[in-house]
């Protein structure tokens, strides 16, 4: 199959309920604001343009090139979307892409979707925007600044987003920070190079054929808040991640001080401690009972379904 999931989509089950809900809240707030800002910039062209470009990013993720052996580089697309559309529209486009991937292709979970939108949409886009704009300003609009900025924006957006992903896993108690941060960061530092190279290739093609697209993208940029958010997120994650990685107990300590870890690991766990159903003393017995009950349920449903199918006239 051509469609390959990127290794940054967190499935359900890996994030605690607390972390998932916090990430949902942040993502909803940012997407709501982005809707308002993009509406101001694009007006009624918004829906068709963003719908088609979301489809384009999705299809673009199929494009890949072989690196060595079986590995291949491919596109995630947050950086190129940011450069061409400006930050607010890019957040909406990435949100749509990540949302459809989760809802239809099970690439990333539904409860974890808030976190995935945050990582690939919010962080990916704001970091890319901050990086690209800063390099554009430093090189004063020279042509190579577009390429240098594109590469740096693509690489950094992937790398920083992967750090956020690792910290979310660590906060959920799924993976200790001293393993998750170097592992995710290391893998995505390499993946980011592929992303950066493809982004530069695409920018080279576009600047040779339709320079105006790169400039209209620039004209739509009214993203002071996005620039600042990118700076803050990049700095914060770049600073916290090594700290959390070097002192994984530190992260846990902070979490424990706030009572966060306990909430994160099982909200009701403390409310009903060591209480067993009357009559069922051991967990082993309960497990056996559950097994029998489950088997009976499945058996009953299977019988019912077979019976219903036999009664139904043969379907085409």
């Amino acid at each position, binding site marked *: 199959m*051509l469609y390959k*999931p990127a290794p940054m989509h967190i*499935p359900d*089950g*890996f994030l*605690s*309920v607390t972390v998932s809900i916090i990430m949902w809240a942040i993502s909803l707030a940012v997407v*709501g604001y982005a809707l308002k800002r993009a509406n101001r910039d694009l*007006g009624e062209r*918004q*829906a*068709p343009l963003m*719908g*088609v*470009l*979301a*489809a*384009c990013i*999705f*299809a*673009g993720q*199929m494009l890949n*090139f*072989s690196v060595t052996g079986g590995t291949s*580089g491919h*596109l995630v697309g947050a950086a*190129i979307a940011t450069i061409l559309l400006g930050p607010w529209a890019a957040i*909406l486009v990435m949100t749509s892409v990540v*949302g459809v991937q989760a*809802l*239809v*292709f*099970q690439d990333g*979970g*539904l*409860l974890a979707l808030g976190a995935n939108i945050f990582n690939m949409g919010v962080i990916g886009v704001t970091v890319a925007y901050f990086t690209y704009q800063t390099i554009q300003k430093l090189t004063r609009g020279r042509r190579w600044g577009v390429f240098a900025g594109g590469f740096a924006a693509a690489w950094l957006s992937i790398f920083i987003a992967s750090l956020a992903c690792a910290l979310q896993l660590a906060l959920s108690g*799924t*993976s200790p920070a001293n393993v998750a941060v170097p592992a*995710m960061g290391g893998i995505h530092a390499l993946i980011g190079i592929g992303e950066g*190279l*493809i982004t530069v*290739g695409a920018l*080279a093609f*576009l600047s040779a*054929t339709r320079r105006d*697209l790169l400039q209209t993208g620039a004209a739509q940029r009214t993203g002071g808040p996005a620039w600042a958010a990118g700076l803050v997120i990049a700095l914060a994650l770049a600073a916290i991640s090594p700290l959390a990685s070097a002192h994984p107990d530190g992260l846990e300590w902070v979490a424990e001080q706030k009572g966060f870890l306990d909430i994160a690991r*099982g909200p*009701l766990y403390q409310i009903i401690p060591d209480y067993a*159903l009357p009559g069922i003393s051991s*967990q082993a017995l*309960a*497990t056996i009972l*559950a097994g029998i*009950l*489950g088997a009976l*349920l*499945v058996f009953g*449903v299977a019988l019912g*379904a077979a019976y219903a*199918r036999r009664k139904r006239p043969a379907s085409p």
Partner: protein
Amino acid sequence: MHVHFLDPYRPRPSLIHGLDPRVKFVLTLAFILAAALLPPAAWPAYILLFALAFSVEILSELGVGYVLKRAALAVPFVLAALPVLFTIKGAPLATLPLGSWRLTMTDAGLARFVSIAAKSWLSVQMAIVLAATTPFPELLLAMRAVKIPRLIVAIVGLMWRYLFVLADEAVRLIRAREARSGHPDPPGARVGGSVFWRARVTGGMAGNLFLRSFDRADRIYAAMASRGYDGEVRTLPLPPVTPVGWAALGLGLVTLGVLVVSGYLLG
């Protein structure tokens, strides 16, 4: 070649297919939330949750094998949870010598790891059933019903409409690259120029895809504008949920609620 193989919807005359998409959407989310809320190592509750998922898979007539095979695709991420085997304190089970290190697997670590894997596996099964039994337009209806902003629903709807067109476009670009390149012998051997050159070719393809998408978006906008589109997304009112739908919703939510509570009591 068309890439409609991307669409996971599989039409069947089943009960689950006939259920109101809003009910299915909410129940799927509730199932995933229930799995997430269960404490680690609440095995009885996991077994019952699995029985529930299995029953739904049988009723959906998708073929249990199909769902389980697709669910296996989500497995690789489990690697991310592997370290908890060794880092959570508990009674040691086994020791793995790794060079100068010795990794000690604990019972609590094993329980946590299996719990994460089980929750993930159960959740993805229900998500697969939702996507395979609900055509996308009905999913859009469910999204509207749970008050996702209209504009997002409109963008996602347009995205879906052009997804296959642009995926075809991407497949054509890939086929064109294959047609003008030599085929490696043996397959997988390094061919062509440097990695940078290959990346640049792929980048050119991506740029091309963007260009065609921009042009297409302009044409679509012009077509929409000429048909009276003024930036307002107008939709038909949602049909009411049938009594059967309400009953299914209530029954499902109560079952999941009871399961979560019993998970804490038994666990």
